[in-house]
């Protein structure tokens, strides 16, 4: 019984950590620029494949693979800014929200398909993985899960330090709170947007490596964690980072319990049911600012 409970908890915490990383990347972009990045899933996949290329094809050490994934994500974010976001910001502000979502959907499809054309559809093995388990008294923990949780915790600390302690973080937070006021105070809002997209791309890159190390590399890799990250964002209230992490962990634990109790099939539907129940009760999310979406 304890074994089963432990297995569920380990699975729940691992996927929760992964969802949290994906959710934070999305939520950061939404919070500071009111943009829902539908290409985030493809950026996740990109990170996983770049790490694979660097480590397996070029034979470089794992650390460089990680760095490559981070870099690829950041570059993808920068390209997204220069090709799409900057142009759409010039248009009417009221249409930005929907337009950027549709445009990033297009970019996401194109990127996923480009990966499919480059690497083929067959699943590949992500080299960033550690075999073996770790014994702690009566418990056995796979090293892989511990690695993922550790990486995610480190990334969370890095992000919160970057947002809380640096000049860039202060500018991002100011833009998120009030874009116009920040601009009037001399914050280069456009540069903040670029930084946010690059940061979120880098997070997506790492997240992709971690997700693929749990399963396998395949072009639609990012879609499943992304869909869950979306609804976790919605539960937490879009743009709320600590809330997003809490929602991700809570919902992931709930999901793994449901998957154990009712079968894997019902994991996602029950998650959705909880989300809808929460939203009927609190339309702007559990921790969302009440004013944003209420009519």
């Amino acid at each position, binding site marked *: 019984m304890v074994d089963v409970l432990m297995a569920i908890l380990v699975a729940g915490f691992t996927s929760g950590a992964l969802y949290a990383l994906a959710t934070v990347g999305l939520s950061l972009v*939404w919070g500071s620029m009111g943009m*829902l990045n539908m290409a985030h899933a493809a950026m996740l996949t990109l990170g996983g494949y770049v790490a694979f290329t660097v480590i397996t094809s070029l034979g470089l050490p794992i650390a460089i693979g990680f760095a490559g994934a981070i870099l690829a994500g950041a570059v993808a974010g920068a390209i997204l800014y220069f*090709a*799409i976001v900057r*142009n*759409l910001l010039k*248009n*009417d502000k009221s*249409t930005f*929200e*929907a*337009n*950027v*979502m*549709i*445009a*990033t*959907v*297009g*970019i*996401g*499809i*194109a*990127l996923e*398909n*480009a990966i499919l*054309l480059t690497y083929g559809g067959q699943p590949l093995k992500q080299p960033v993985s550690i075999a073996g388990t770790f014994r702690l008294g009566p418990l056995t923990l796979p090293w892989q899960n511990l690695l993922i949780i550790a990486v995610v915790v480190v990334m969370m600390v890095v992000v919160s330090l970057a947002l809380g302690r640096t000049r860039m973080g202060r500018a991002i937070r100011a833009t998120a709170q009030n874009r116009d006021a920040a601009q009037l105070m001399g914050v280069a809002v456009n540069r903040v947007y670029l930084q946010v997209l690059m940061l979120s791309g880098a997070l997506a890159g790492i997240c992709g490596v971690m997700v693929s190390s749990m399963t396998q590399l395949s072009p639609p890799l990012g*879609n499943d964690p992304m*869909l869950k990250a*979306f*609804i976790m*964002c*919605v539960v937490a209230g*879009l743009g709320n980072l600590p809330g997003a992490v809490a929602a991700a962990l809570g919902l992931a634990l709930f999901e793994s319990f449901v998957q154990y109790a009712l079968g894997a*099939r019902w994991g*996602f*539907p029950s998650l*959705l049911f909880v*989300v*809808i129940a929460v*939203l*009927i009760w609190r*339309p702007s999310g559990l921790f969302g600012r009440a004013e944003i*979406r209420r*009519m």
Partner: protein
Amino acid sequence: MTDTKPMSRISRSARTDLAISLVLVAAAIALPFMVDSRYILGQIVLALFYATIASQWNLLFGFSGIFSLAQMAIFAFGGYATAMLCFYFGWNVWAALVPGALGAVLFSLAVGLACLRLTGVYVALLTLAIAQTMYLLIVTDTECFVMVGSVCRQFTGGAVGFARFGDLGTRALLRAQWLVGNYAIIAVLFAVTMVFTYAIVKSPIGLAFRALKDNPGYAVARGVNRFQAQLLVFGISAFFTGLAGGFYAAHFQAIGPGVLSMSQLMFIIAIVVVGGVGTFWGPLVGTVVLVLADELMRESGEFRTLGLGLIIALSVVLMPKGLVGRFGDLVHWLARRRAKLTDAKPIDSNIVQSPAPAGK
């Protein structure tokens, strides 16, 4: 004199719309006589389905500002409901079409009750999640519901879907020319859908939908109930979407979870975006352009999806109002140029003072 009075009440844009639709009807009637390739006619029927779904998504998103991503789910619901009524109860397809569409309306109202309290991207995310859930539940359905011969059938048809539950009866009636018959039926479906959509858009309730889209705060302050109005438009568009789903299942004599895939939804969105969001003819223009582009890209096979994604992104960036919007800009620009030219001419036409030259 008295005869012309009601005529003058029809606005110029309405007369243009009428002229366009008359031309389209004539073209639609002429089409089967000019096209004798089965493949092309089949693709045209498929394009008519796309145009029908896209026009309803445009009614939701373009005219009412509801960013729903459950459009294909509602379409699939209509198709599945029709197919299942025929498959399990042995109904005639024609009898099952309207109940299927009403089933889709009920489904959409349930979705709407859950989602329409929210606005903007929250609606998009929740409806996307609902559509994906529906897909996952259908694909992973492995429990036997009935045995057909020695083959186990799932209640939802599983990953395979339903097939051979009946057709529109055109094969028995027209034999070799059955495709022309189906083309006529689907063309009528599209025409009826467009007429109803036009009536809704131009009606007072259509104005309420548009007001909610353009300025929700003001519309609500003027007494429009946002939740009720949006639920209403959700249900209306679901009826035609579901009906199209039923006809789709009947035309292909099959329906499977494939219609729920992300790429199908993206194709519909691309049609509306390329054609022009919030314009009446946009979905039709977008369908023609994208189906043609899709056929051209078929040559380059594997780059189709890549190209489609880039087309979506580029058209959002380059022409936010789509082709119809760009065409309107062109007409305006030409009119202004002509106004400028006549303005610059000497004053020999001073009898007709052109009303406030726009170039000023």
